[in-house]
């Protein structure tokens, strides 16, 4: 077991590194085929009055006249040493820009995740405990509803209802406690749907198992059955969901930050997109990939230790589950 685990861990580690490098190259390719060229665009602004010769010199000075592969190599080696270069838009180091906004996004994402987890477990456990005639169906409908509402609409409604009508928080101080809470709710609602779907599917699955039937036949009520037999096995997949929703949280924060006027990674991306600030976009996407891969790696490494039933057949056979997988999972007999 130990040897097998070590081999498994080593294989996953190598895979993770490969994925990170490939993700960097992939982003570089997508970003470098962007049609606009912000640098020459700024330089050619007639108000600046640069001659063609001067423009060439400036571009050469920044290494932008090199072949793409050479640029990729320079940028990749710099990335590996932790240097992201200078932002084209603000002329400030990309590392500094990201470091400035990262804490705010981390706070939003973690509180969004907390909201999602509370909502999801509430709904999922509710489906097991609330009898059919008291609105279990309604509870089961929530994930679907949550997945159908664009989170910018949730954000707009929350801001107007709680920010302006009820005056619960100052909209212009988006980092205050209450503003963060409401932003977290807007971010957490769609994410909670995904977790809830997986949880419900797992609970239903466990409930249909033989041991649950046996327990029921022994006269165990729904609550005790749930508490004693269903809660633990169905909660394990949450470990992998944490890793998976990371991407959702980051993607969602892009919109939530815009709607709530928070500064963060999301608003940084938006500003960088509108000015095609390539070094910043490259750095953010690469970092997101790094974080995602590392967290998933961690989940993969921890999971076999938590659940002895999992066979170590390699990561590919046990990819973490999404909402859509929740779909495929339910189909699986």
């Amino acid at each position: 077991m130990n040897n097998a685990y070590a081999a498994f861990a080593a294989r996953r580690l190598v895979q993770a590194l490969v994925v990170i490098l490939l993700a960097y190259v992939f982003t570089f390719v997508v970003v470098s085929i962007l049609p606009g060229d912000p640098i020459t665009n700024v330089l050619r602004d007639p108000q600046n009055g640069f001659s063609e010769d001067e423009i060439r010199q400036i571009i050469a000075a920044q290494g932008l006249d090199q072949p793409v592969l050479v640029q990729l190599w320079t940028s990749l080696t710099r990335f590996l040493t932790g240097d992201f270069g200078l932002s084209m838009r603000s002329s400030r180091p990309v590392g500094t820009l990201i470091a400035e906004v990262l804490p705010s996004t981390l706070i939003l994402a973690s509180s969004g995740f907390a909201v999602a987890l509370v909502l999801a477990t509430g709904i999922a456990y509710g489906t097991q405990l609330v009898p059919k005639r008291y609105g279990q169906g309604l509870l089961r409908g929530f994930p679907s509803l949550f997945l159908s509402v664009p989170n910018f609409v949730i954000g707009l409604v929350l801001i107007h209802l709680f920010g302006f009508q009820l005056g619960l928080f100052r909209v212009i101080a988006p980092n205050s406690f209450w503003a963060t809470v409401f932003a977290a709710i807007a971010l957490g609602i769609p994410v909670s749907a995904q977790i809830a779907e997986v949880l419900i599917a797992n609970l239903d699955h466990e409930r249909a198992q033989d041991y649950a039937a046996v327990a029921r036949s022994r006269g165990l009520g729904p609550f005790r059955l749930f508490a004693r037999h269903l809660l633990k096995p169905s909660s394990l997949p949450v470990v992998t969901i944490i890793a998976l929703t990371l991407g959702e949280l980051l993607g969602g924060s892009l919109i939530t930050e815009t709607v709530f006027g928070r500064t963060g990674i999301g608003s940084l991306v938006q500003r960088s997109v509108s000015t095609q600030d390539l070094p910043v976009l490259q750095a953010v996407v690469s970092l997101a990939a790094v974080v995602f891969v590392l967290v998933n790696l961690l989940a993969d490494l921890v999971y076999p230790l938590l659940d002895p039933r999992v066979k170590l057949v390699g990561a590919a056979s046990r990819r973490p589950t999404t909402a859509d997988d929740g779909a495929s999972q339910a189909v699986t007999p």
Partner: protein
Amino acid sequence: MNSRFALLTRSRRRVLMSGFAAALVAMTALPAACEAGAPKNGGDIVFLIDSLGGTWIPNNSAISSFQGHIWGHVTDKLVYVDADGKVSPWIAERWEQNEDATSFILHLKKGVTFSDGTPLDAAAVVANLDIWYAGRKSEGINPIGLFPKTYKSAEAIDASTVKVSFKAPTLGFIPTLGYHGSILISPKTLAQPASQQADLGKTSGSGPYVVESWKEGDFVKLVKRKDYNWGPAAVGHTGPAFLESITYKIVSEPSLRVAAVQSGQADVAYNASPQELKSLKQAGFTIATPRYLGFVNGWAINTRLEPYNDVKVRQALQASINRQEIIDTVYTPEWKLATSFIQSNVPGATDQSALLAYNPDKARKLLDEAGWIKGANGVRSKDGKPLTLTLYSNPYLATAKAVDELIAQQLGKIGWKVFIRAYDVVTFGEKVQFGGPAVPAYEVTRSFIDAGTVASILTNANNGENWFALGDSDGKLNDLRDRIAGAGTTEIRAPLLDELQRYVLEQGYFIPRTQIVQRIYVQSPRLKGEVYNGIAYASYYTATKGE
């Protein structure tokens, strides 16, 4: 050397007089304020703004519609230009120019310092003039766009006297010193490399406020400088500012900015949606829609493209636009009808309204004459080609898309087929250029301080921008341009400018839409006494906040 300036020219004398008049106004205004009780000191305000732009390198950001607000409080200028384009002294106490406007002498106010302690003396002004003209291109520090390209050199004659020389007559030099690009920055900051200049917190100006803290994409907080006492006399106050601090805070949604001011969470909202202004005004909020000195919002027509190479089609376009309906639908009565292709408050602007009247019958007749016949689907065509117009909504004007859609409806009635393209700022800059091969009409939003610079932009002489893609083909326009550039006094220039405006509109080279209000302010009634300068920026240097 100095003997050249011994003779006071008429224009120089007048400039001095106007400065003196402004000082006089200031002196009479001040006691009045005192009688009403001294202005209240203290108070903090929050100003909500769409964006704080990209870089903070002073040269690259000074003309930004967003960063300009901060620079206006953190820095001073050599001269002050008010909302009517009147020039008055500021850091330059007085100035002289030679007969043909190729050489100027600036006399600086003494005792002015930057916030890093460096004196604002002649050497500092020379350093600023040099970087405004040339920038440091290899580092990515751009020159100031509208700074005269005819600049030759500047030298410090003594600690408080600067002599500036030009290669050709440059009547616009003094007004340009009051332009929002011409901000005085400490020479210590200017000596820093671009990446250091990009850190706003490390930049020193001589203005009434200094940057206390800032965060990229979030806010900039300014606090007042206690020892400031060199404000422009024209605003009626020269001592330290009254308000303790001003915080510029980014809130990107216009409706949120307004709602925050309405609910008392902030004091000023920038760029509100025009539709909301009426009810805000009724609710007691102060609405300001100052017009900057510059071009009106309108199109520069590409005369190289079919069918706009035909003057009749251009004239038909001029007559097909119902400008009053634009103001009634998209804007409010605070917006003014265009009377020329430059804003009516620019000195030298003349009233050409007759050329801009809505006259659909005239438009139809002109198009019929030009051979564009209306087909069954309501679209005119000629030789099988439909009459089309592609509009590129200007990303710098929030209402541009709505106006484009409305104009598309108006032109549709006459027989045009209109397409609208909307790009982000970068793509717009990339794909949409004056006279570009697919750009029949370029939507202009551009400010300037001195009308003398206008003519040279329109053609391609002297690095001009060749707005109508005429090159040097229009002899009359070239002649007007040269005579305006060579004019040594405004008296000679005025009739030439009038002729230029009439000619450009008659030919349908420029199609005005409305006079432009690029900056809209919604302000809490508690905040009073702000001043708007010639580029429509609000200055809170003179403002006070009541209970």
